[in-house]
């Protein structure tokens, strides 16, 4: 059962690692800047 879960666990590990790296780089700030302003492209006006 552990063998079957190994690929998923590895992918999860990579995902968490990337997530932490991205947070340390400050990427959520870029996401927040985009998300906290009306995205004119998203609503079809950009």
């Amino acid at each position, binding site marked *: 059962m552990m063998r079957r*879960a190994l*690929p*998923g*666990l590895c*992918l*999860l590990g*990579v*995902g*968490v*690692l*990337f*997530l*932490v*790296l*991205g*947070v340390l*780089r*400050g*990427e*959520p*700030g*870029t*996401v*927040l*800047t*985009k*998300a*906290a*302003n*009306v*995205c004119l*492209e*998203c*609503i*079809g*006006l*950009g």
Partner: protein
Amino acid sequence: MKTHPRAFVQLCVTALSNGYAVGFARGTIFKGRIKGLCLPGLNCYSCPGALGACPIGSLQAVLTSHEYGFSFYVVGFLLAVGALCGRFVCGWLCPFGFFQDLLHRIPFPKKLRRLPGEKALRLLRYVILVGFVILLPMFVTDAYGLGKPWFCTYLCPAGTLEAGIPLTLASAALRDAAGWVFRWKLLLLILLILLSLVVYRPFCRYLCPLGAVYGLCNPVSLVRLKVDPGACVQCGVCQDACPLDIQVWKKPNGTACIRCGKCVRACPCGAIQAPFVKGGKTVSTKG
């Protein structure tokens, strides 16, 4: 109409992820810090009620920013969620998926289980993911070297439904500014709504780049379907019950499955198991 637990979960998730009711009343959007957090489903961050960020929109935002060429944060989020549960997100946690589910419940003279060219159509979502979400935003840039979110701009129906329509209804200035792109996206939304009456979840099946990512994780995700070959009699009841017409007994964790659990409940032998839904029977009919 009997309310199934999945519909209740979908309703709660939709309400929670778009809980900023003041936004709808005032025609504004939420600007709090938690909006820097990605939500797992397709939910436009310009929706007046949205409390979190859309991962596909966020991915394009970081790809087109000057500071970063690659988004560890969003890609990491997608990989982690995909590795945990794959397209369970699509079946249980996506507001736009819920919207299509509701549309498909509306009675219509002819319901189709698949469209002509189904196999080719199902590849479209990968074309959209690679082309509109990744390559075009990264490489088609303006005079300042900035790209734009091509998927959000030209395709995303969730943006039109959740953000474009409520915001333009609330603001005369935005209504005046609406041009051909708005009308094109509105047409696309209407077409998808009409198609949803006929075929189950057309956007999820054929076009959604987020579903494409999660679907690639389905075969390895920790939350998955399990088919007991000893109990399965290959009667095909699971495929009949599957709204996406998947041969569950053959390919229980394929990229198209949204993990709605209908096959689990339908199986007469209890051969299909999933941690998120109870099966019909648990007694094996094979000797």
